[in-house]
């Protein structure tokens, strides 16, 4: 954190100055480790073993925050009899289909609940079975089940959309099948000794962490976990986060000040681009994109994907308001508010699938906007082959990045795999405005929207994206005007009239923000998403952002100095939702609505006034008393009781055990990375049985535990560079501060492979070989895993061939295997060999890499 989010780290240091203990768990010793109370080195990819070990410690020592657990979680609920844990199935849960490589989660359900909704992207898998079953006699429940698990939720709206009935509970937590006991058994084998073996950390070190976090998680104290893509870039990435969620919930650290699980996101508005998603599977505000299957109309979509209880029960109001924002008067009650204008999904259309389709020439055009996939994404060769097989490519950037120039100086030109003259891609490089040349909001890592004002005008042809897409849309609409083709109705009926200003007709970003916020029937700016209606009388471009333009005031531009506010600083910018700074903060008070302690008071129930109050906006209906009990058949938020703090969940509970919502199991389980130097010491199953692969010549995978690729490597960022380097390698100061690509190796590995400090090394995987300067450092520690020593190599991934500071891209070394929930690649750990000296040049490089593949028994590589 000190390296990649330096200014955020000042708050960690503030906490330390006030007595907090800082523990840094990271394979590398970094600037964070240097100021931490304890640095725990460990093996990349072993995080679930570590987190599972902590969960086991909490449960076996009875250190959970019992009152919190019984009040706010599903610990007491009984898991159905059909569920079989990994303990009894060689590391695999019940419901696994070895042929398809996927799970049917029906056996994971809770007792007394009919069925619950599924993970993202699984609908395709179930669709054929659904159709088959329509011909069978016993359709009823089965059919509904598949409809349910085939829905399109992405971890948001539809999780448990279909839960009907109340699960059986055992408040004593003694029932052998209650969640608490199931969890306890699942993690029983994650003992301190096992953790030590798998992770390569000392038993003492592990116990020091376990004691520190449990002693610091009480009524009076809270513990926070901070992570970044070191947790998400794995073939079990979503389960890493689940592991932390279980631990933090058991310890009572969610929804409380100083607690939580804090994702440090890496780009100025990566949070915003998830909220208003430039992502294929989501609509704004985490509404799932409709699938082709069962979503013929709005009603069937809501039936399949919207929860009936909790705040997702209002998805009809969010969605209809979105459709009204987009299609205005053309969206009517009669035509389902133009619901069928939305295109439909049929499975995974994530970025790696798109690139595969580019290589296969199934898709023809590509806009790349402020991103540099040619060097910034895993398996650079795959990315560049995609670019080379396009009809046309539009790159919008400030600098001449590698993605724009792949056709003349990409690595494949040097090897002779591609020839410039043979590449048919038409490339448009369009210069973009920078952050001082346009106004707009970024959403930072804590969900805070902050408005930037425009300081100067962009030079020459440089334009904002707002300008480009607005005018592109206008141009397309002009060209299609008068079309009678049905498929052109959505684009012609689109609301696309933003006021513009200046000689370049720049659209007014405040007008766009106001549309995102939404209006009522009279054209007034809405103040809250609770005002949204499903009858078409309101609009909102992104329901979670409703309120950012409350009273016609740009709330994101509020700039009351921090020194003039309390520590919550609620009058700086605007946080979604409802300017709430800590989510689920109802849990900061006990069942009766009283703060867990004076020291940790955050929001509480004021019985006299009959309202919730406190330092933050309470994350519960303001006048719902802690004693509230829902009536039978209540829906939406009314179905949640006064102690149901997790209001987006259908049952209002934090899930220690997830009966639905994940594609790879109801509880996190340690699986080795696909490319691992060691065997899985905890379970028979080596890697995630449900992970996703792309089996192609340009994406060969190193065999696990291969002597040809014996070392683990991990990629990371430096303080002085930014992602793929487009905003840093072209700048003098930053290039001076970190002038060259390097690899970090331990003195032991340097001795083993004859690597010289500051000399050159070549790193080889089944994809390619790259070269880097050698940094021999004690910061990398060899680890003992089982009966062998594992060496890890650190690779900052910022480089490419263009700019002031150049070098080979670390991402070229990586292959693509993906987590089945979110289709994110495993790029934080893989294997390679390392040899002294520079890599071969030209066609010799191909032969060199092929010779490694042959030795390792890997199929030949290639570009098709």
């Amino acid at each position, binding site marked *: 954190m000190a390296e*990649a989010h330096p200014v955020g780290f*000042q708050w960690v240091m503030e906490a330390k100055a006030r007595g907090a203990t800082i523990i840094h768990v990271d394979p590398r010793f970094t600037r964070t480790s240097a100021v931490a109370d304890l640095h725990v080195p460990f093996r990349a990819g072993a995080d679930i073993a570590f987190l599972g070990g902590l969960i086991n410690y909490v449960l076996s020592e009875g250190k959970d925050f019992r009152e919190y657990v019984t009040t706010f979680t599903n610990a007491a609920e009984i898991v159905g009899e059909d569920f079989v844990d990994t303990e009894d199935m060689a590391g695999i849960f019940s419901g696994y289909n070895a042929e398809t490589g996927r799970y049917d989660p029906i056996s994971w359900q809770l007792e007394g609940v009919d069925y619950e909704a599924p993970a993202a992207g699984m609908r395709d898998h179930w669709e054929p079975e659904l159709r088959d079953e329509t011909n069978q006699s016993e359709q009823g429940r089965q059919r509904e089940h598949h409809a349910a698990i085939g829905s399109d939720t992405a971890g948001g709206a539809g999780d448990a959309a279909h839960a009907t009935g109340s699960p059986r509970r055992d408040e004593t937590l003694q029932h052998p099948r209650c969640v608490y006991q199931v969890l306890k058994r699942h993690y029983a084998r994650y003992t301190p000794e096992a953790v030590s073996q798998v992770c390569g950390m000392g038993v003492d070190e592990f116990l020091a962490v376990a004691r520190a976090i449990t002693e610091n998680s009480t009524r009076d104290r809270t513990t926070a976990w901070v992570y970044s893509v070191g947790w998400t870039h794995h073939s079990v990435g979503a389960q890493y986060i689940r592991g932390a969620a279980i631990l933090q919930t058991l310890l009572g650290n969610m929804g409380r000040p100083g607690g939580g699980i804090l994702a440090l996101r*890496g*780009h*100025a*508005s990566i949070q*915003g*681009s998830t*909220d*208003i*998603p*430039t*992502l294929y599977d989501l609509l704004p505000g985490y509404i799932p994109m409709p699938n082709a299957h069962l979503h013929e109309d709005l009603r069937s979509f809501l039936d399949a994907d919207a929860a009936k209880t909790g705040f997702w029960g209002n998805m009809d109001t969010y969605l209809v308001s979105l459709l009204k924002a987009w299609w205005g008067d053309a969206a009517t009650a009669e035509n389902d508010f133009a619901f069928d204008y*939305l*295109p439909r999904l*049929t499975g995974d*259309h*994530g*970025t790696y699938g*798109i690139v595969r389709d580019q290589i296969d020439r199934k898709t*023809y*055009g590509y806009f790349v906007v402020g*991103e540099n996939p040619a060097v910034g994404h895993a398996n650079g060769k795959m990315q560049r082959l995609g670019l080379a097989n396009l009809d*046309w490519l539009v790159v919008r950037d400030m*600098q001449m990045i590698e993605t724009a120039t792949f056709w*003349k100086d990409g690595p494949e030109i040097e090897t002779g795999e591609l020839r410039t003259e043979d*590449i*048919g*891609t*038409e*490339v*448009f490089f369009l*210069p973009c405005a920078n*952050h*001082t040349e*346009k106004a707009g*909001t970024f*959403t930072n890592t804590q969900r*805070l929207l902050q408005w930037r*004002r425009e300081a100067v005008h962009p*030079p020459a042809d440089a*334009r904002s*994206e707002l300008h480009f*897409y607005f005018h*592109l849309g206008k*141009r*397309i609409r002009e060209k299609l005007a008068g079309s009678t083709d049905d*498929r052109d109705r*959505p684009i012609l009926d689109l609301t696309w009239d933003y006021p513009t200003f200046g000689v370049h007709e720049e659209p007014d970003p405040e007008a766009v923000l106001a*549309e*995102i916020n939404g209006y009522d029937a009279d054209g007034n700016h809405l103040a809250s998403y609770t005002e949204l209606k499903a009858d078409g009388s309101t609009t909102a*471009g992104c329901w979670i952002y409703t309120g950012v333009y409350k009273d016609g005031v740009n709330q994101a531009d509020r700039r009351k100095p*921090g020194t003039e506010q309390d520590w919550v600083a609620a009058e*700086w910018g605007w946080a979604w939702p409802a300017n709430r700074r800590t989510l689920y903060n109802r849990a900061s008070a006990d069942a009766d609505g009283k703060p867990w302690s004076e020291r940790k008071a955050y929001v509480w129930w004021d019985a006299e006034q009959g309202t919730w109050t406190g330092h933050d906006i309470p994350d519960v209906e303001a006048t719902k008393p802690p004693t509230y009990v829902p009536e039978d058949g209540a829906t939406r938020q009314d179905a949640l009781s006064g102690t149901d703090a997790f209001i987006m969940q259908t049952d209002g509970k934090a899930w220690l055990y997830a009966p639905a919502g994940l594609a790879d199991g109801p509880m996190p389980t340690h699986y080795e990375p696909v490319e691992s130097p060691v065997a899985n010491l905890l379970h028979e199953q080596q890697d995630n049985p449900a992970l996703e692969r792309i089996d192609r010549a340009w994406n060969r995978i190193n065999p696990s535990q291969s002597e040809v690729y014996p070392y683990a490597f991990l990629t990371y960022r430096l303080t*002085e560079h*930014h992602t793929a380097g487009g905003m840093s390698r*072209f*700048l003098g100061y930053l290039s001076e501060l970190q002038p060259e690509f390097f690899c970090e190796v331990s003195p032991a590995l340097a001795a083993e492979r004859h690597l010289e400090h500051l000399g050159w090394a070549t790193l080889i995987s089944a994809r390619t070989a790259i070269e880097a300067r050698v940094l021999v450092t004690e910061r990398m520690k060899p680890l003992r895993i089982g009966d062998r020593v594992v060496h890890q190599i650190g690779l900052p991934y910022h480089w490419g061939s263009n*700019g002031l500071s150049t070098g080979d891209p670390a991402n070229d070394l990586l292959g693509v295997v993906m987590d089945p929930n979110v289709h*994110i690649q495993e790029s934080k750990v893989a294997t390679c060999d390392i040899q002294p000296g520079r890599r071969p040049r030209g066609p010799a490089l191909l032969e060199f890499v092929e010779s490694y593949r042959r030795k390792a028994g890997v199929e030949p590589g290639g570009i098709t």
Partner: protein
Amino acid sequence: MAPAVFNTVVAGYLGQAGSIPVRLRHKHCHTSPGPDAVPEGENHHVARRACMGVRTWLGEWPIFRQATGPDPLGRGAAVQSPRTQALGPRTADADEVVKSICPYCAVGCGQNVYVRDGRVTQIEGDPDSPVSRGRLCPKGSASTSLVTSPSRVTTVKYRRPHGTEWEDLDLDTALDMIADRVIDARRRGWQDTDDEGRVLRRTLGFSSLGGATLDNEENYLIKKLFMALGAIQVENQARI
């Protein structure tokens, strides 16, 4: 070392704000403002030189001032030349200071953008921000060089199919060509239904990548436009 970075590094180690609040710095600035600082008016300089006598001349000699003045170590006033005395921070001459946010990572540090004659002259941390309290890291501190980079490309470049060099292209022509290509790719990649008759109403003809460095308003227009075109393949860094 670049002054902005230097300030951050030094102040960071001193446990102070990475960027000293600008008003203070203007009044008490004794540090070198760096090679590209804007010097104060020449006239002022010349007038001073004209009224110099011998004593003044001697008094301008650094070693004399060091030996006789209050700066025996020669680390402050004693070693300043008229030129260095005349130098002021870029920030002092700004026409306006515009509130902004750092474009790099998601901490979201506040920035003050100093503008003179319609150009950005300096970017500093915004002390008002409760997120960053005036600090910027090396990247944020390098923002001035990001927005004034000499290698920045500001005109449209075009590479025709199989071409070996960039060509220039008029922006409006480029926009028009891109609109044609979108319409064409959309048509070629269009799917009304799949082979089992399920309604798809979409195109796989083209796709988009990017968003994490863009504004919410911009992502909103991209998503809205692509959905209306039936183009489902919209992705960004969040999945990378």
